């Protein structure tokens, strides 16, 4: 892959706070036009990394190239070509959505922009276009912050945990928006701790923990790379790891608070054995059989759940 097609190149990025290595040698590339996700729990170093790429934070080591320009040296020039979505609840609380968007347009005089009217349509805030920003709901404010990131029709859009605190419907709405942006040819770099979000939206995902990239690839690749098992899940009050390890086909068992996950390479065999074992000692509640997810991958790589 030639470097000219990379929207972002990050090499050996480091950031240290006192004794803590927040970002400890992260390297990856984001190709033009792809949706690239950084998936990991809170404190993994995702936000710090994305802030350094955006130019909002100074790295302690490594190199960053955005659209062919180097951070942090060309930070101001880069700012004109990227869009950063930042959650700021207190941004001009008494100005209307339209007024805030118009104001941001004045920061990009002489450059190509997407008009306020079009942005409002794009993020579906038409009903609220004359509402003061403090009167917007959480999801609406999030959509406004995405609109603000698009004012200068950027080549790359950075979304930092864009659906945190949103209800499922609002979340799906935002996913549609991200897909629409990709249709327009934009490159998108997002961070999230929601596995479903990474699976649904991202062409490629980097799994991040403790300042490192543990794995990188398309969601499908990652799952099939680490997961040959199918998960059988149920609730059982007497759940105990040792009970289930001996069942046919079971590779791994995770028990947490009465919730049992069996990772099996032979589902019919495991199911038969399971039903026989629990015949009269209480029904299996909430039985669910599913393929692997990124959360399973994370669990396997780190021994911890994505959301602690």
């Amino acid at each position, binding site marked *: 892959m030639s470097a000219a097609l990379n929207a972002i190149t990050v090499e050996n990025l480091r950031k240290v706070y006192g004794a803590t290595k927040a970002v400890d040698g992260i390297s990856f590339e984001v190709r033009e036009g792809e949706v690239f996700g950084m998936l990991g729990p809170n404190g993994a170093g995702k936000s710090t990394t994305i802030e350094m790429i*955006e130019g*909002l934070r100074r790295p302690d080591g490594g190199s960053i190239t955005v659209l062919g320009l180097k951070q942090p040296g060309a930070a*101001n020039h880069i*700012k*004109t070509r990227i869009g*950063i979505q*930042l959650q*700021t*609840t*207190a*941004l*001009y*609380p*008494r*100005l209307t959505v339209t*007024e805030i968007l*118009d*104001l*941001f347009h*004045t*920061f*990009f*005089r002489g450059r190509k922009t997407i008009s306020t009217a079009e942005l409002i349509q794009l993020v579906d805030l038409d009903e609220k276009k004359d509402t*003061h920003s403090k009167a917007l709901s959480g999801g609406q404010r999030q959509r406004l912050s995405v609109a*603000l990131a698009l004012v200068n029709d950027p080549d790359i859009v950075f979304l930092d945990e864009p659906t945190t605190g949103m209800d499922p419907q609002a979340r799906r709405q935002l996913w549609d928006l991200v897909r629409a942006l990709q249709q327009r040819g934009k490159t998108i770099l997002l961070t999230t701790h929601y596995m479903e979000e990474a699976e649904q939206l991202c062409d490629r995902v980097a799994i991040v923990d403790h300042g490192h990239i543990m794995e990188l690839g398309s969601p499908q690749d990652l799952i099939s790379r680490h997961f040959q098992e199918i998960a059988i899940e149920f609730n059982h009050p007497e759940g105990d790891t040792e009970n289930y390890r001996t069942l046919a086909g079971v590779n791994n068992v995770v028990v947490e608070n009465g919730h049992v996950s069996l990772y099996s390479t032979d589902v019919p065999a495991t199911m038969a054995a399971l039903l026989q074992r629990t015949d009269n000692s209480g029904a299996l509640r909430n039985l669910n059989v599913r393929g692997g997810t990124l959360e399973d991958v994370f669990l396997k790589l780190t021994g911890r759940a994505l959301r602690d």
Partner: protein
Amino acid sequence: MSTVFSLYLASMKEFVRDRMSMFWTLAFPILFIVLFGLIFSGSGSVNFTMGMVVEDQGQVGQALAQTFETIARQNNSPFKLETGSRQAEMNSLKKGNLDMVIVIPAGISAQVAQNQTAKVQMYYDPTRNQTNAQIEQTIINSIVGQFNQHYTRVSPPLAVDTISVATKTLSSIDFLVPGILAMSLMQLGIFGTAQPLVALRQEQVLRRLGATPLPRWMLLTSQVLMRMTIALTQTALLVGIGIAAFNIHMEGNPLALLGIVLLGAATFISLGYLIAAFSPTVDAASGIGSAVNFPMMFLSGVFFPLALLPAFLTPVVRALPLTYLADAVRQVMINGTPAFPLTVDLAVLAGWVVVCTLVAARFFKWE
């Protein structure tokens, strides 16, 4: 440039649409002036008895003495006059029969003839009501000031009606209004600038704006312009209400007052930025602001004259920028007794602007 104007408009809209905040920002100085107006309206205009000692035999001394006598004979004169020897008048002053003694010393005609400055001496009892003493001195000052402007050796002494312009009775509120105006400018700078700016930083608004190519100086300039607009509105309200409701008298040039208000606002706005630079949180800004605000309120000659303060505080008084602003405003608005020459006042204020701005720019963190 119009980006600065757009930012300015946005912040003005924010201010105006926050009805509570706008109300208190504008109402606070008004409350002060109404309060003081009501307190002092009962006391009416000042009346005092003055002893005059004329030792100069020349034309200037005689003309000045005649001026005072003419005024004293008017119906609405603020003072009664008696003339006598230095010893007699000073004795009367010590006994408390006189409020003030003015001495026109020997030789001033000769000095004036040689284009030197001649001084007229005023004596007063320092244990008396200080506010009244200040007002009396102000009246005498304004008379002498007018005399200086009009006097030439060729023409006869001032016509009576010209002098009567200078003797409009000044009441206590005339003395206090300039101080209150200066104080409101100070509070605008300290609280109205520092806290909102720190809040912007705390709430990460500065960070959001910093993620765009917007240059920082544009944001700061728009903020300064916005605070200046508020300062001018406060000034207009204060002076307007003072004139309309309490009949305060503005002696000076309105343009000069405007210039000093702008300079004073700049001084305290830059001081506000300095405070914001060293305040990590809004609470810290509020605390530091109060720590700065209270000493200045009481040690800068706003509510009572500087002469009332003990001598060991003089270095502190001289270090406070409000001292110089209050003095300058008082001089321009009502020809008040200067604590410092006006040029010194302006120079000190300008110096504060430069120093505060440089230090604030160096230390202010945007996140």
